């Protein structure tokens, strides 16, 4: 299964892959610079960005950039991430999920319920981060908001960032855990066995009408 196969299925188009990795790199930069300003134990991370003032200058611009790039990605993925009745059943069997007992799980479409919830968690956090981030962007926008709003936005920004960072750790781990996932997002293709095992409903749909050898 490691070598090149002729029967591989396209899971992510080049556009989606490039889009995903631009978002991913932006996120890493934002998490590092944001944590640097969140906790003194992490302040040394400002060194990666050219010091404290540069970290403060760059962070919001990268943030706006990521929000815009994620919008393009999220727009494409929105439809496939809508929760369906079988997804709730999947979530009830989360113990089987964690223990790799996929034979006990209901069929999964293009994304499973975990991926879907993660998607909407990311969307909610990004909206929260963007709005609160604008309020606390001192140089350009803070003057337009009252001190109470700025304080609330500071807290909200930290909360959303915290949830997002944890969500992305889960996302990264899931990719390491389910072998073949990283290749799907780097090379774009998965083996039929991978698709059949993890996303059977999608596998059927993706292979419908394609001549099999």
């Amino acid at each position, binding site marked *: 299964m490691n070598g090149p196969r002729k029967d591989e299925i396209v899971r992510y188009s080049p556009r989606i892959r490039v889009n995903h990795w631009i978002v991913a790199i932006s996120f890493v930069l934002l998490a590092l610079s944001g944590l640097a300003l969140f*906790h*003194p134990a992490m*302040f040394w991370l400002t060194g990666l960005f050219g010091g404290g003032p540069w970290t*403060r200058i760059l962070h919001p611009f990268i943030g706006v950039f990521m929000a815009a790039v994620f919008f393009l990605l999220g727009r494409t993925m929105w439809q496939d991430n809508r929760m369906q009745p079988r997804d709730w059943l999947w979530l009830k069997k989360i113990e089987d999920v964690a223990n790799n007992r996929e034979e006990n799980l209901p069929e999964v479409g293009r994304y499973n319920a975990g991926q879907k919830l993660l998607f909407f968690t990311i969307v909610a956090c990004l909206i929260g981060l963007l709005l609160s981030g604008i309020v606390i962007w001192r140089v350009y926008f803070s003057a337009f908001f009252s001190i109470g709003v700025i304080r*609330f936005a500071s807290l909200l920004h930290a909360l959303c960032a*915290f949830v997002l960072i944890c969500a992305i750790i*889960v996302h990264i781990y899931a990719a390491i855990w389910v072998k073949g996932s990283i290749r799907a997002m780097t090379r774009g293709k998965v083996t*039929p066995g991978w*698709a059949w095992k993890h996303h059977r409903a999608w596998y059927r749909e993706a292979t419908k009408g394609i001549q*099999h050898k």
Partner: protein
Amino acid sequence: MALQSLDIIRRSATTLPEPEVRGAYTGQVAKLIDTTKCIGCKACQVACMEWNDLRDDIGTCTGHYDNPHDLSEHSWTLMRFAEYENPKGDLEWLIRKDGCMHCEDPGCLKACPSPGAIVQYANGIVDFHEENCIGCGYCVTGCPFDVPRISKKDKKAYKCTLCSDRVAVGLEPACVKACPTGAIVFGTKEDMTQHAAERIEDLKTRGFAEAGLYDPAGVGGTHVMYVLHHADQPALYSGLPDNPKISPMVRLWKGAAKPLALFAIFATAAAGFLHYIGIGPNETDEADEDAARREREKTP
């Protein structure tokens, strides 16, 4: 002022003790501003400009005596004039010299994310070290008195230093030196509190039954205190807060949230690692590929 002063009791965004071998053994300092003696001459503003070499823009008249009309990175102190009609129907001109209150529990210092950008000396003075300031404005968010200002030019935060450079060599702050009526006095906090008590006693005999000292407990007391004719209504003095304290939102953001969030982030990563070790990866094998092939053949 440098760390070498060896008398720093608190330093922003720092978890270890500071060089603090030199203490304020003769007592912490305080500036007492007696609003009942103030004539609004603005000599203190001028003295502040002169000593600190600050020049604000020449502004425009906005219909009242405040000039400039707000604190800025160039104006670290400002007389605020309020016209108050008392219950007897008489006009009272309540003039308050505004500026940093030098809180015992400073909200700016609590909010600052940059190590050593804000310090508190053993004598109680809260000082900004602009060379460490990153310009985020969190000090503005944290301050209960709306005092710090971010420079439009260099994006650093500025405020009254209580003339820490003068006090360090045994001089009183410039505004105190210049005040012609003795409305601003400077000394140990103990002496100033005692002096205020005498003033308040005197004021009470002169018809100001509610005269009192403004040394708000919500921020642990301040190293700039006011004698007010109407200590029961601080807000009369151009919006002096009745009960200033660090906002609960800032406390949460800069308190419990920091260690808890960091712990939870590491715990999430650790949980992933342990899951991998304990349960292991979810792999696709030849049997899955065969099953996939069978499924394809089954459904043309």
